[in-house]
């Protein structure tokens, strides 16, 4: 290996069947290095979200192996907890806790899981909210915010746990068009700060500008992995060309 950076996520031959027999992942391999931004694209039902969710054990898998920051994901609950502490996740539907204020959304996990003192966590949470540009909303409830603001809070909430990797599961799909940009900007800022990120998205512009590599998935398999410039201008596989035509 010539790559200077350490391996952050190592997935080998991951196979997943749903209880109803559907073969969702068919031997997927992927290596993500520290500081790298990987964008996963693909048509709906291609298994890209499922694959992403195996990284923090929201989905289990039957064969293959995944290591995150050197911790193997196994049936060991302690290791699963350890991985979840290392991995932040941002969902399509934000999934903010509507009964807690924005600030409490951020401080809940660090206080309960990391057992950090509340004062310190609050200070850090306010810094993070400032970083995503919504410090003045700290005492509001999620229901009082716009979609874009909510997704930025969700990002800040994950960051508050000081993760080593951030996973984004279609973070802009549920947003009104005018709010997409503010979220992408925050993500871009994160990437520039050197955060390791795996992003499932359809945002071609984001992939072009930010991603180090683009992964195309289809039918539960990885079709192509390539740097964005190569992927978008000169895809190697017929399936990739077809996909790029479809998303225009």
């Amino acid at each position, binding site marked *: 290996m010539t790559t200077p950076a350490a391996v952050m996520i190592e997935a*080998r031959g991951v196979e997943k069947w749903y209880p109803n027999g559907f073969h969702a992942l068919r031997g997927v391999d992927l290596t993500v290095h520290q500081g790298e931004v990987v964008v996963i694209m693909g048509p709906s039902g291609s298994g890209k979200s499922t694959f992403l969710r195996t990284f923090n054990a929201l989905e*289990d*898998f*039957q*064969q*293959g*192996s995944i290591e995150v920051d050197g911790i*193997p*994901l*196994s*049936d*060991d*609950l*302690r*290791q*699963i907890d350890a991985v979840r502490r290392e991995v932040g996740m941002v969902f399509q539907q934000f999934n903010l806790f509507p009964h807690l204020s924005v600030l409490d959304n951020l401080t809940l996990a660090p206080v309960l899981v990391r057992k950090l003192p509340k004062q310190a966590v609050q200070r850090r949470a306010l810094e993070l909210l400032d970083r995503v540009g919504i410090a003045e909303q700290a005492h509001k409830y999620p229901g009082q915010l716009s979609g874009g603001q909510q997704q930025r809070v969700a990002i800040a909430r994950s960051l508050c746990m000081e993760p080593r990797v951030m996973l984004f599961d279609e973070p802009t799909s549920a947003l009104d068009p005018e709010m997409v940009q503010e979220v992408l900007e925050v993500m871009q800022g994160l990437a520039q700060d050197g955060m390791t990120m795996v992003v499932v998205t359809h945002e071609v512009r984001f992939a072009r500008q930010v991603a180090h590599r683009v992964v195309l998935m289809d039918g539960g398999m990885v079709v192509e992995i390539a740097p964005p410039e190569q992927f978008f201008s000169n895809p190697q596989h017929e399936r990739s060309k077809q996909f790029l035509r479809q998303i225009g």
Partner: protein
Amino acid sequence: MTSRSAAPPWWRNRRYLPWLVQGVVALAVGVVVAFLLSNLLLNLTARGLLLSWSWLGQPAGFDLAESILPFDASLPYWRALLAGLVNTLRVVIAGLVGATVLGTLIGTASFSSNGLLRGLARVYVEVIRNIPLLLQLIFWYFVVFLALPNGTDAIQLPGLVLAKSGLFLGDPQLVNGVWQAPLRFSVEFGALLTGLVVYTAAFNAEVVRGGIASVPKGQWEAASSLGFAPLVTLRRIVLPQALRVIVPGLNSQYISLAKNSSLAVACGFTDLYSVSETTLNQTGRAVEVMLILLGSYLVIDLVISALMNGLNGLVQLKER
């Protein structure tokens, strides 16, 4: 997962932990149940009351105040219990119909253009729902129904007599100081039925109100712009749509009505529970009588649920 460094210990293994938890729970429940059952067996054996059903065939030795099935004291216990069950079913079925009609009337009255009617509907619901049913039943029986006049003073209409002993239909005759007629409803039945209908109607009214409120306002507006009168709109346009919300809500109210009918003991009506209690007192067969009682109500509940689910299917289909 195939490649793992070492198998994790069982207490934090994602694959085994769920089974472990279930095993512990099952074991705990099993131990408690076994403990109770062994005690039951032990105690029943000690008192010579081991589970047996032969007593059902012995003559009951007591009479029933009213029964559709012919019954007298020489008939066996199972006939007495059956007569009680039939009486329960009689009051449940009549109660379902009555509570539905009254509940629908009151539920729709809360959408009346008449403010007084609206207010009264609200007051009815709020008053009735917050007073215990048992209290209401006792009130209906002892304060209202037993205040009816008797004998020659009874309320007499052509073909109908309402007396302290009941409602008599179809050419009632006063024989030896007692009213007699082909068709007769006792005041006990009347009090129980009235209490159940009045009480359940308050809950049904809320279900109906919620159902009507769930129909978009646009439906009313569209209908009235087509020139429908309000009552026609309600019956032809709104209620059919509201049914999809109303029917599931009524299901649980109907089941409570069936179960509440067991409060018949408070007003002297010989329902299944009342007969069971007498049977228990005379045979001492506590466990068997309880099993019969619980089983019967469970079956009644299941039948109501099944019927309502069928109705629900019909209502939902109409939507398409």
